[in-house]
């Protein structure tokens, strides 16, 4: 009698276990299905650019990348989607995205990597407990708040400091963007530095190296792939970030190499124009094409970053 109850209890527990397993599996599947559906939707809306001759007369790959007639660079590559003859050159947008990304990485990378090196190798644990959450808290600031700060405060400071011709430009937007990249680069770099085996540090110190020598010539080189991965992830974020650049870059689609010119990025263009665009028009499909382009680039870059991190972790565990 007693054994019968135990067996029933056991069966009941197994049943719950099995169902919990299935529910959790389904939930995790939802995430994957969602990504796949988004992927399909964006590419389906972008496809007419490559297939529909009606759309292609106004917007095709040739319009995106081929120069028009014009006296200078800026007039050969133009983004003027609302015009009698719409002009859909993606060159100024791609150039603008690269310029802000370059500025942002140029500022964020040295700062974040140096901060990671300091907290993992030099800082006493009390200071470390203060710096680490503070930097990570930076990741929690909504990007629209960072953008607003950049538009109202940062742009004015930098305009006074450097005397830019245009108040909102690639450098201002890149600087604001750097604030969003620092936590990403810092967190991943710090993890990579912490993952370097203690035995390496001890060996270096035992051989008479100073702490500085140990940090820069032993620990940092050992963690280099992880640090590189953090920069790759930062790049992915910078390319896709929308709100900060929308507010702080001035959004002028100028084809030029000068970093003090105002820029318009791919992501900001979608945000600014998709709300109004006529459903199914060439302009609409062009914006989705840009979205697909961003999706592919950030997906590839982020996958590469994650792949490198996995490789490093396995190597440090001695599995490769």
């Amino acid at each position: 009698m007693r054994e019968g109850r135990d067996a029933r209890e056991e069966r009941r527990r197994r049943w719950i276990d099995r169902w919990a397993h299935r529910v959790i599996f389904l939930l995790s599947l939802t995430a994957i299905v969602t990504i796949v559906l988004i992927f399909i939707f964006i590419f389906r809306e972008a496809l007419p650019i490559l297939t529909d001759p009606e759309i292609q007369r106004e917007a095709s790959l040739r319009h995106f990348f081929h120069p028009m007639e014009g006296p200078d660079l800026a007039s050969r590559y133009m983004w003027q989607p609302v015009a009698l003859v719409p002009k859909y050159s993606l060159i100024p947008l791609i150039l603008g995205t690269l310029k802000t990304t370059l500025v942002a990485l140029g500022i964020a990378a040295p700062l974040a990597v140096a901060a990671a090196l300091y907290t993992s190798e030099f800082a006493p644990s009390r200071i470390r407990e203060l710096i680490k959450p503070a930097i990570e808290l930076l990741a929690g600031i909504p990007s629209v708040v960072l953008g607003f700060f950049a538009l109202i405060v940062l742009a004015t400071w930098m305009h006074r400091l450097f005397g830019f011709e245009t108040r909102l430009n690639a450098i201002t937007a890149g600087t604001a963007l750097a604030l969003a990249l620092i936590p990403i680069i810092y967190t991943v770099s710090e993890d990579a530095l912490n993952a370097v085996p203690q035995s390496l540090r001890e060996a270096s110190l035992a051989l008479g190296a100073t702490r500085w020598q140990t940090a820069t010539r032993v620990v940092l080189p050992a963690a280099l792939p992880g640090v590189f991965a953090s920069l790759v992830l930062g790049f992915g974020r910078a390319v896709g970030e929308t709100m900060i650049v929308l507010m702080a870059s001035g959004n002028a689609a100028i084809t030029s190499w000068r970093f003090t010119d105002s820029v318009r990025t791919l992501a900001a263009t979608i945000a600014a124009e998709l709300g109004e665009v006529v459903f199914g028009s060439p302009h609409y499909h062009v914006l989705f094409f840009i979205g697909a382009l961003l999706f592919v680039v950030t997906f590839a870059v982020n996958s590469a970053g994650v792949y490198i991190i996995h490789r490093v972790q396995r190597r440090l565990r001695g599995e490769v």
Partner: protein
Amino acid sequence: MNADSRWSRIASSTIAAVSIVVMSACSSRAPSERARAVTVKGSDTMVILGQRWAEIYMQKHPGAVIQVTGGGSGTGIAALINGTTDIAQSSRPIKPSEAEQVKAKFGVDVIETPVALDGLAVYVHESNPVSELSLAQLKAIYTGRLRNWKEVGGPDLPIVLYSRENNSGTYVYFKEHVLENADFAPAVQTLPGTAAVINAVAKDPKAIGYGGIAYGVGIKALKIKKDDASPAIAPTLENVATGRYPISRELYFYTVGKPSNPVARDFIRWVLSPEGQAIVTEVGYYPLPEEKRHEVARRWEQQE
């Protein structure tokens, strides 16, 4: 590591709490109330005006709910076509292609109702000695042919151009009436909203920008000459109402036929009344001249 997980826990619980509050706020709205709500969507230039109208109307008619949102004239008309708004506010006339879409989708003609007048002001920084420009000069500046303030009688400084985003009725109006459909120079910076343009101009002595007169606080609005021979006209109430100021336009409501919602119908009738038009002045735009108002109100009543 410890601190790390603590922060992420705090962050995730905050997100959870916020989303619960938001969800409950959305679901607590009674369905009957939602059924009666009139939505008004469109032009950013008209948002303040629309909200003020809605506010006063709702005070006078307890129980009526009117929700006004912006997004740009194009956004409002797109919403009208998609059937997601009762009234579209627009600072530009509807395009024939858009009107056709409404007709094709609902089988009814779109009704255009002018509700107010607006002058487009051209702003410069307070310290800029330039006080007037002709339409031709303005066109040359915004298409990038004139690039220095000294070419229009100002200091030897480059001109920094500000504009609205291309989803705004103000952008389209400026492009059609001032640039005569020529393209904006690539160096034109586009900012989201007239307030952002004003903010940028107020901070940069080299800047020029344009937008609705209602927003014009803290900067200098230029006098505009229709051509070199005409006098320079300031964007004032009388000059816009009499049509002397060269860059003025009508602001519209668009509806799909006469709306079936009685609140929407009564709201529009009220906006066209002397009482509704008085609010236009209060907000800083220009009421329809009395004759025009009568005509528009009569036309509205005669619609089926």
